[in-house]
């Protein structure tokens, strides 16, 4: 029984249905790992032990009656920006330190309906703004491969938890790389679906035209199983797309012979660490061995994706975060003198430094006299980037390249200069700007640290992206590596 955490989500779900172990046993085993690692990793903000054990007992009764669903009894964790009824949702912020949502996010409700058992809420960069999980009000998360290093962000808690096998799968969100970048830095599989594929209802909003919920798991097969339960139309989200959800699991084995893989020229330019490049190129050779054809493609406007993002995302954030006013919910300052003082001090105290920086950047680029020069200009360049992707996908089936320029970096190494931190997402932001599905999968090690390969597909091609990732994972074992100390 000591090896339960080595079994991936898909196999655990099958083992539960075959009654090889109970959900209560599984939940107890993973809770023990979560609690034992909390001091070292700080991956969780809330652990819901009692509720999880009660849900597991209920799942065992369903499994005993032989009516279990795809995920019945499987333990998972939610990033702490998915609203959970009755369990606080902090978004990593002092502002929401005591916020208890009166409703469940659609993603939470769907996974519960599929039978998954929530063990807790994972740590994250405050309001998902960060690439290292160092902006969390609840302290940084540490990388299980080396606790002196960051796990990436903003979904750093979910990524560290899955990498250390504290849970077999976790939800996450990706606005500029917040699923893929921590997946790469922690050596796991991360999937950001197409914009509109997964409901944003009950996901605390950061940048509404970019935010998308997805998965962090050990393997692509596990991602397919989780996504199948999470995806689908939701009338509560006006940007949710009315489109059938394919059976991602059934489509995993599609052959890769003849797959046209585009190599993004711009991704192999200066800035990419040679060790990361070596791992990525070796993975590309694996795809060639599986019959894929590599074709170099150029997206000339892609180098402007980070500047576009740092106009559009702060603009949307300044608007979305205007709701935190100290009146209806969230932090309120002591003894306000008047209403303006109430607003200004509640927000000044409730938000951390990076969130305030982005709110102010957004306020500036939307203000009178600057809107055309910054915001509209950025949305025009975004159109050019999106058109670059459309042209590329007329030639190739998927695009591949590195997820990040380097492996995990030291805590504190990039906190003094925001631009240095922002450039971490140089390879991931493009897919958000164009609304495309993209995954990061482990493809080797730079020294002792994992490296991620990014796979980007056309809109709604999650099945193809996952099948490519799965093909790599059948040919290699990088995704099965577990950090020393958590094996």
């Amino acid at each position, binding site marked *: 029984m000591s090896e339960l955490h080595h079994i991936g989500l898909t196999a655990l779900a099958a083992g539960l249905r075959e009654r090889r172990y109970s959900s209560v046993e599984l939940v107890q085993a993973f809770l023990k790992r979560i609690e034992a690692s909390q001091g070292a990793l700080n991956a969780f903000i809330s652990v819901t032990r009692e509720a999880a054990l009660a849900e597991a007992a209920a799942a065992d009764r369903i499994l005993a009656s032989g009516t279990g669903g795809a995920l019945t009894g499987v333990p998972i964790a939610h990033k702490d920006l998915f609203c959970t009824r009755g369990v606080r949702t902090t978004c990593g912020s002092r502002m929401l330190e005591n916020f208890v949502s009166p409703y469940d996010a659609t993603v939470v409700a769907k996974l519960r309906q599929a039978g998954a058992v929530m063990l807790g809420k994972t740590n994250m960069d405050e309001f998902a703004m960060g690439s290292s999980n160092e902006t969390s009000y609840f302290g940084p998360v540490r990388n299980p491969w080396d606790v002196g290093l960051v796990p990436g962000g903003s979904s750093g808690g979910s990524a560290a938890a899955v990498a250390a096998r504290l849970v077999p799968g976790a939800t996450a969100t990706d606005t500029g790389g917040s699923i893929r970048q921590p997946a790469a830095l922690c050596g796991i599989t991360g999937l950001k679906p197409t914009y509109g594929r997964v409901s944003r209802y009950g996901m605390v909003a950061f940048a509404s035209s970019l935010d998308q919920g997805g998965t962090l798991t050990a393997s692509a097969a596990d991602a397919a199983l989780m996504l199948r339960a999470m995806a689908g139309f939701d009338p509560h989200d006006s940007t949710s797309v009315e489109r059938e959800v394919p059976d991602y699991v059934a489509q995993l084995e599609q052959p890769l012979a003849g797959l046209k893989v585009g190599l993004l020229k711009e991704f192999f330019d200066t800035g990419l660490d040679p060790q990361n490049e070596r791992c990525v190129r070796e993975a590309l050779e694996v795809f060639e061995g599986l019959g894929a054809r590599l074709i170099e493609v150029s997206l000339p406007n892609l180098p402007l994706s980070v500047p576009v993002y740092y106009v559009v995302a702060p603009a949307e954030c300044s608007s979305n975060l205007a709701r935190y006013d100290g*009146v209806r*919910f969230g932090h309120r300052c002591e003894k306000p003198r008047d209403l303006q003082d109430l607003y*200004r001090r509640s927000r*000044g105290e409730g938000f951390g430094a990076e969130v*305030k920086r982005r709110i102010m950047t957004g306020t500036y680029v939307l203000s009178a006299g600057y809107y055309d020069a910054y915001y509209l200009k950025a949305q*025009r360049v975004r159109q050019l980037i999106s058109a670059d992707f459309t042209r590329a996908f007329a030639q190739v089936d998927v695009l591949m390249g590195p997820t990040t320029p380097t492996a995990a970096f030291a805590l504190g190494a990039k906190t003094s200069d925001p631009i240095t931190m922002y450039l971490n997402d140089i390879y991931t932001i493009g897919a958000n700007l164009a609304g495309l599905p993209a995954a990061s999968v482990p493809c080797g090690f730079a020294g002792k640290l994992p490296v991620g390969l990014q796979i980007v597909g056309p*809109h709604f091609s999650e099945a193809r992206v996952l099948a490519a990732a799965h093909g790599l994972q059948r040919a290699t074992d990088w995704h099965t590596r577990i950090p020393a100390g958590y094996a």
Partner: protein
Amino acid sequence: MALTREQIESIAALARLELTGAELPVYQQSLSSILEFVGALERADTASVTPMAHPLPGLSQRLRPDEVTEQDHHSEYQQNAPQVTAGLYLVPKVIE
């Protein structure tokens, strides 16, 4: 593009953010460098390009019939409010 201390104060006022004296120069420096960084956008030729309005090409916001779908949840929602009396949110006096 360098922002002045007064510009930072005015942005913070627009954003309803109280900044401390120590925070002001930090944001003055970092916002200036962010604006300089995003200034790279000027180089792109966008003369005939329509600004992107939706992340999925050809799609726009879905509309729904104008029907009442929400129930009254105010007492439940107000459990998260800092100060409530008789079902009303309390704020400092606005009109003397």
